[in-house]
């Protein structure tokens, strides 16, 4: 992003871009990452149960 903010058009594009990435991150990307991480955790535990620990006690 450029530091010069002379024209209004540049201001609005920068503004919109920032808002877009903020909303995208907060409401879509990070929740997806959270669900994905929990799923991976679940699969890892399951895999370990099959290979090492056996069913949970």
């Amino acid at each position, binding site marked *: 992003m450029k530091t010069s903010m002379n024209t209004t058009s540049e201001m609005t594009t920068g503004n919109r871009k920032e808002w877009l990435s*903020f909303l995208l*991150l907060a409401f879509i990307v990070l929740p997806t990452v959270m669900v994905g991480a929990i799923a991976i955790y679940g699969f890892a535990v399951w895999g370990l149960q099959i290979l090492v620990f056996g069913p949970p006690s």
Partner: protein
Amino acid sequence: MIKNLYRTVKNLFQRPSTKIGLGVLVMGGFIAGAIAWLGFNTALHATSKEEFCLSCHSMHDNLLPELQKTVHWSNRTGVRTRCSDCHVPHNFTDKIARKMQASREVWGELIGTIGTREKFQEHRIVLARREWKRLSANGSRECRVCHDYKDMDFNVMRPASQVAMRRAAERDESCISCHKGIAHQLPDMKGAHNPAFDTLVSAASGQNIEAGGEYFAILPRDLFTDPQMTQKIGLLEVGAKVKMLETQGNMQRVELDLWRKNKGYGRVWYSQFGLNITSAILEKTVSRDDNLVKVLEAQEDLLTGLEWQRVKAEVWMQAESLLASPEPIWSIARSSYSSSCSTCHRQPQEAHFDANTWPGLFGGMVGFTSMDEDTAKVVLKYLQNHSSDFSETAHGNDATKGAVQTARP
């Protein structure tokens, strides 16, 4: 591409936002986080609901009607279980792992592994074993959310239940050890297969067979009049003793030297005089056929007044189903006997009863175990062949140890 992604992420974290205020960012992030967590929990909860489980055909058509017939569905107290109460672990880690395991079930539903009632019945033993294993490992934790030993008043139980339950509580026994099939039908054990028999089969295929030798059947085998297997004339039971005559390719001619009661068709042949240890069962059409069956001698059983005949027959059977010693067969039976029977009570010593008492006793109890048909047969044969009729010290070494039920309420 990866470098680009790395740079984007790095910029995201290092470059301060120029247009949006810090408060807005923090608040937005906070709200988004709260919504995400709420959504996640709602989804977790929704996938544990009965409606969700029953949305699959295999659940709705098979397991629901079965559950509806049990006390866990409808009872006088109006407390009822839902799928997840028993089948979904209650703590976070195990619950998440179980949810991921369900991906396998979703896949099964999609490709129709248990798409029909028949397929389900066939596959049920696999599913049941998986769940039994899980509940054994965690000591039936899910059952004990509602039914825990420490909260039970043994005094209001029926006397017979008291005995069993007090002993179980003493050992902290897992509920599933005795209460299999409490919420769904038990699997059909006939189709089940005890993996221990595989070792017997491989031992039998390596067994050196000599004509004139005596061998023992490792599994029930069909008997034929000829090596082409044109006429089936009966069934040789597991553990039965035969004398080898000759081998022709995949078939063997053996001699049966057994006893039968001279009554009716005389179809059932026993290994000893006067003892109901079944060794072979012949078809009605041939059991009185003098060409096949030679009667060697007759003797009266004074206890019953029945005449017993020592009979001989030469029959054909499939090769690779015999062992020179019955011990490997008995050792499978012994381990099955001690593990299956001791879950609910101390198992009696083999020699505590005689060979003619065991079948009735065993027949009454085997329904409580998860033995498949072949295993049940071999265990009964084992018990009969190690009963007091064959033991040097009558009633075993220590008569007090053999009592079926020693505890009193």
